[in-house]
C-alpha cells in the first residue's frame, strides 16, 4: 500500500458534498423494505407464542385454512427436518418446532389476499401448549435447579459441572494476576449489570419473497447484508444458493439487528406453498421488540489493581451474558474489549454465554463492548475518585499505543487513543464549571473493526463517468464516502460517480454492512478496482501514443506522458478515453474481490455532563462530547453522524432503555411508548472531535467509525451520575426509579 497516499493532501476526501441518495430520501421516493408490491402479491402474518417456554402439543389450522382469501399456512412441518448446527438454530429461531422458547417465538404463518384476512386467520389457528418453567435473568439461569432452557445446549468449551444453561465458555489472559494485584496500592472489585437493549431501528423488518417449486426464487428485503440472507435462507430451506436472488431495499436502520434472518424463510416457504405467488411480510413494532434483536443482558464481576499514581497493575473480569434461547451473546467480544484500551501486564478474562427464555440476541453496534466498558470504565473511575486523580490523566498513563500488546494478545499497529484522550482534555467541555447536583463523567471505549469478504466492480461509462457497484447496503451515507474515494482515485468530479448497491446475482459474496466495514472494505476494494481501470486506460493511451505503458501515468483524470523521455503528448482525459473505448478494445471495467485486511482499531473517549434531580432521580444530560479516532474522515459529516448516533444509543441504554419482563416471562414493554429510546427533547447537542490518526493499511487511512461510539456513554453517564450524587450505580439503566432508590438507600442497583 502506498503510504504516501495517506499523508498527501486530498482533493475530495475530507469534503462534505451532498450524498448521492439524498434526493430520493428527502422526497419519499426511496424504496424501503415495505415499499414494494407485486402483481398477485399475498400478505403474510405470523402467529407467535404467548408463553415464555411451552411445549407445542398440537396445531390445528383447519378453520383458518377455510377462510376466504387464505392461500397458505405453514408450520415447522413445512421446513426440512435434517438441519443441524447453526442452520438448525437459525431455523429454530425462525419458527418453533416442538417447543416455543420465548414470548413472541414464531409458531405458524399465514399468507392471504389481505393483511386483515391473514390476521383473522391467525386468530383461528388453535395451538395447544403445555407451559414449561422459564428463566429470564442471566444469574437466575446459572443457579442450580434453574429451569433448563434447552437440553444439551453446551458446546465443547463448557467445563464439566457447569449449569446446563451455559452454552459456551471462554477464558484467556496473560501475566500473573496475583503478582499484579500485589503491586497495586488499591484493588477494587464490583458487580455490574446491564439490561438487554434493542437496536431500535425505526423501520420494522420487511420482505417480499417469491419461490417456485423448482427452488428458484427472488427476494426483496431490508437488510444489512443480502448475501447473508441468501446464505441463511438457503441453508434453512435447503435451497441452492445461486437460485435465490436477493435484492436489498433501502434500509431504515439496522445497527447489527438486520444481519440475520427472521421472517425471510417464512415468506419464502409461504410463497412456495401458495404456488409461487409473491408474499410480503412486514413486522409490527411489537413483533420487532418481541422476536428480533436485542442484545444480551449482562452480569459482570470486575477486579482491578491500581498504583497510587494511577498505573493499572492487573485486572480480571468474569462476564455472564444472556443471549436468548439459542446462545450467541457477544461475550467473547466483550472480553476482548474489556481492557483493550490499557497496557496491563496481568489480565484474566472469563466469559459465559448463557441461555434464557428470550429471543436470540442479534448483533448490536460494537457487540459486547458497551457492557464491558460500563463495568471496567466505571470501576476505573471509582479508583480515580478514591485516589483523587484526573480520569483523563489516568487513562493517558495507561493508554495503549503502536506496538502495545493488546489485552487479548495481538500487538496494536498505529492507533490513536492517546491523541483522542489529549483532544478531549483540551476541549472546552472538560473545563466548564458545574453547578449543584451536576457531575461530569469520562470514559473510553474500543472496537476492533472488521474487514470481511468483499466484492466490487467499477466500470467506465461511455461519457467518462464512473459506475461503482458494491454489495454493502448504504445505511448511513456510505454511497457518499465510496463516491468520494472513487473520485479521489480517478481525479474526476464527485458528481461523475454513481454508486450502486447490487443484488446477490451481480457480484461475488459480500459480508453485510457490519463491523464498521462498509467504507473501509468497500472503499479499499473500489480503490483496487478503479486502479485496474486506470491501468487499462494508461495501456490504451500508450498504444495510441505508441509508447511503453509504463511511460504513461494517471493524474487528476488524465493520462499523461510520464516525463520528457516518454514523448511530447497532450494529456488525454478520461472522457476522451471513454468515448473511444468501443474502438480501442471494448468496455473498461475493474473488479476486486478479497477478504479485506488492514483493519484499523478505533478508540473513542466521551465526556458527559449531567444533572440529577435529587427529588425524582431523573438524570438530564446537559452536555456531551464524543472524540474518536476515525483514521481518516472521508465524509466528515457522516463520521460525526456515526459518533452522534452511537452516543445517543448509548445514552438511551444507560438511562431508560430496558426489556421489562413480567413474572410470566413475557415482555411487557413491546412498544416505543414503553421501550424508551431517546427523543429529541431528551438531549443536548452532541459535540464531536474527529481525531485522525490514519490507518497505515488503508489507501486513504480509513479505520471504520460506526461502532466504537456506543460503548463509552454507558460508563461516562454512570461516572457523571456518581460525580453528581456521590453514589455509584452499578446497574443499568439508571432509570429515575433506580437512581432515586440509590439516593435514598445507597443501593448500587445490583
Amino acid at each position: 500500500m502506498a503510504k504516501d497516499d495517506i499523508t498527501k493532501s486530498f482533493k475530495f476526501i475530507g469534503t462534505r458534498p451532498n450524498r448521492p441518495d439524498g434526493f430520493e430520501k428527502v422526497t419519499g421516493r426511496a424504496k424501503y423494505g415495505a415499499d414494494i408490491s407485486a402483481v398477485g402479491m399475498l400478505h403474510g402474518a405470523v402467529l407467535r407464542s404467548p408463553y415464555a417456554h411451552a411445549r407445542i402439543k398440537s396445531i390445528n389450522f383447519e378453520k383458518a385454512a377455510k377462510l376466504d382469501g387464505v392461500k397458505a399456512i405453514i408450520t415447522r412441518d413445512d421446513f426440512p427436518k435434517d438441519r443441524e448446527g447453526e442452520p438448525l438454530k437459525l431455523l429454530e429461531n425462525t419458527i418453533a418446532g416442538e417447543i416455543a422458547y420465548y414470548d413472541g417465538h414464531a409458531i405458524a404463518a399465514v399468507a392471504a389476499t389481505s393483511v386483515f384476512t391473514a390476521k383473522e386467520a391467525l386468530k383461528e389457528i388453535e395451538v395447544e401448549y403445555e407451559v414449561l418453567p422459564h428463566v429470564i435473568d442471566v444469574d437466575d439461569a446459572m443457579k442450580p435447579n434453574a429451569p433448563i432452557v434447552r437440553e444439551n445446549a453446551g458446546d465443547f468449551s463448557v467445563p464439566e459441572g457447569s449449569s446446563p444453561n451455559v452454552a459456551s465458555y471462554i477464558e484467556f489472559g496473560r501475566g500473573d494476576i496475583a503478582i499484579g494485584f500485589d503491586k497495586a496500592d488499591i484493588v477494587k472489585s464490583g458487580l455490574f449489570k446491564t439490561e438487554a437493549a434493542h437496536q431500535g431501528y425505526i423501520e420494522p423488518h420487511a420482505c417480499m419473497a417469491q419461490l417456485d417449486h423448482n427452488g428458484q426464487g427472488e427476494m426483496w428485503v431490508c437488510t444489512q447484508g443480502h448475501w447473508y440472507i441468501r446464505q441463511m435462507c438457503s441453508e434453512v430451506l435447503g435451497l441452492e444458493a445461486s437460485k435465490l436472488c436477493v435484492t436489498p431495499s433501502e434500509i431504515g436502520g439496522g445497527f447489527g439487528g438486520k444481519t440475520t434472518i427472521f421472517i425471510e424463510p417464512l415468506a419464502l416457504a409461504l410463497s412456495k406453498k401458495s404456488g409461487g405467488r409473491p408474499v410480503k411480510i412486514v413486522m409490527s413494532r411489537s413483533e420487532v421488540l418481541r422476536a428480533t434483536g436485542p442484545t444480551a443482558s449482562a452480569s459482570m464481576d470486575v477486579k482491578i489493581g491500581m498504583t497510587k499514581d494511577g498505573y493499572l497493575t492487573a485486572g480480571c473480569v468474569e462476564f455472564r451474558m444472556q443471549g436468548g434461547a439459542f446462545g450467541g451473546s457477544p461475550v467473547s467480544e466483550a472480553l476482548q474489549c474489556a481492557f483493550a484500551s490499557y497496557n496491563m501486564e496481568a489480565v484474566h478474562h472469563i466469559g459465559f454465554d448463557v441461555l434464557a427464555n428470550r429471543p436470540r440476541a442479534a448483533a448490536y453496534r460494537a457487540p459486547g463492548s458497551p457492557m464491558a466498558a460500563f463495568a471496567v470504565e466505571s470501576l476505573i473511575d471509582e479508583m480515580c475518585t478514591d485516589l483523587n486523580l484526573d480520569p483523563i490523566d489516568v487513562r493517558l498513563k495507561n493508554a495503549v499505543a503502536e506496538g502495545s500488546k493488546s489485552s487479548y494478545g495481538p500487538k496494536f499497529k498505529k492507533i490513536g487513543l492517546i491523541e483522542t484522550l489529549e483532544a478531549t482534555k483540551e476541549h472546552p467541555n472538560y473545563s466548564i464549571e458545574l453547578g449543584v447536583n451536576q457531575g461530569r463523567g469520562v470514559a473510553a471505549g474500543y472496537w476492533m473493526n472488521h474487514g470481511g469478504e468483499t466484492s466490487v466492480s467499477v466500470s467506465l461509462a461511455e461519457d467518462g463517468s464512473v459506475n461503482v457497484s458494491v454489495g454493502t447496503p448504504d445505511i448511513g451515507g456510505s454511497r457518499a464516502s465510496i463516491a468520494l474515494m472513487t473520485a479521489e482515485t480517478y481525479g474526476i468530479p464527485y458528481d461523475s460517480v454513481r454508486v450502486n448497491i447490487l443484488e446477490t446475482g451481480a457480484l461475488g459474496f459480500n459480508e453485510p454492512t457490519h463491523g464498521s466495514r462498509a467504507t473501509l472494505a468497500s472503499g479499499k476494494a473500489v480503490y483496487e478496482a478503479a486502479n485496474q481501470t486506470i491501468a487499462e486506460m494508461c495501456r490504451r493511451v500508450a498504444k495510441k501514443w505508441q509508447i511503453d505503458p509504463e511511460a504513461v501515468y494517471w493524474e487528476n483524470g488524465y493520462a499523461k506522458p510520464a516525463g520528457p523521455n516518454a514523448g511530447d503528448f497532450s494529456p488525454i482525459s478520461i472522457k476522451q478515453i471513454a468515448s473511444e473505448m468501443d474502438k480501442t478494445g471494448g468496455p473498461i471495467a475493474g473488479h476486486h474481490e478479497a477478504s479485506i485486511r488492514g483493519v484499523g482499531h478505533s478508540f473513542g473517549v466521551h465526556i458527559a455532563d449531567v444533572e440529577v434531580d435529587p427529588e425524582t432521580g431523573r438524570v438530564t444530560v446537559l452536555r456531551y462530547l464524543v472524540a474518536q479516532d476515525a483514521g481518516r474522515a472521508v465524509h466528515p459529516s457522516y463520521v460525526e453522524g456515526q459518533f452522534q448516533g452511537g452516543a445517543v444509543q448509548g445514552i438511551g441504554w444507560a438511562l431508560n432503555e430496558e426489556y421489562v419482563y413480567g413474572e410470566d416471562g413475557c415482555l411487557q414493554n413491546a412498544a416505543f411508548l414503553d421501550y424508551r429510546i431517546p427523543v429529541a427533547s431528551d438531549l443536548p447537542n452532541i459535540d464531536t472531535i474527529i481525531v485522525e490518526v490514519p490507518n497505515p493499511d488503508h489507501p486513504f487511512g480509513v479505520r471504520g467509525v460506526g461502532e466504537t461510539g456506543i460503548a463509552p456513554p454507558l460508563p461516562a453517564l454512570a461516572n457523571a451520575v456518581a460525580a453528581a450524587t456521590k453514589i455509584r450505580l452499578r446497574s443499568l439503566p439508571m432509570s429515575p426509579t433506580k437512581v432515586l432508590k440509590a439516593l435514598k438507600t445507597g443501593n448500587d442497583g445490583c
Partner: protein
Amino acid sequence: MNKIHVKTNINGDQVEFLADPRETLLDCLRDHVGLTGSKEGCGTGDCGACSCIFDGDLVSSCLVLGVEAEGKSIETIEGMAGREELHPLQKKFIEMAALQCGFCTPGILVAAKALLEKNNNPTETEVRYWLAGNLCRCTGYDKIIKAVMETAKEIRETA
C-alpha cells in the same frame, strides 16, 4: 367487509380510493394511492414516521382512518418539493447530513415544515419538543435540529 368510496385531495390532486373502514390513512396512502413516502415505524402514534398534514393539522397518519379523509385535503412528503426545486428544509437536510438511513426523514420533514409555517423563529428547545414525536435512531438528532434551525434562519432572512 364492505369498502367505502373515499374522495379526497392529496398534494393538490383529486384522488379516489376504496377503503376498508379498518384501514388507516397511512394504509390507504401506501397501498391504494401508491404514496409510500410516509412510513410505518410503529402503527401506534409513537414514532412519527407517518406524519402528514391532514386538513392543515400535523397528524400521525397511522392514527387517522382512511375513511376520515373523505372531503379533506392531505399533504404528504411527496408533495413537499416544488416542480423545479426542493423545499428549503429538504435542501438543508441533504446539505447538513441530517439523515442517515433516511427512514424517519419524510416524517421529520413534514413535521418540521408544519412547525416553521407556524413559527419561523423557534428556539432550539421548541424544535426539540416539537420533534419529540418523531423518533430517529441514527443521528442522535443533532444534525436534524441544526438543519431545522438553519432553515428557519434562511426563511426569516429571505422573508
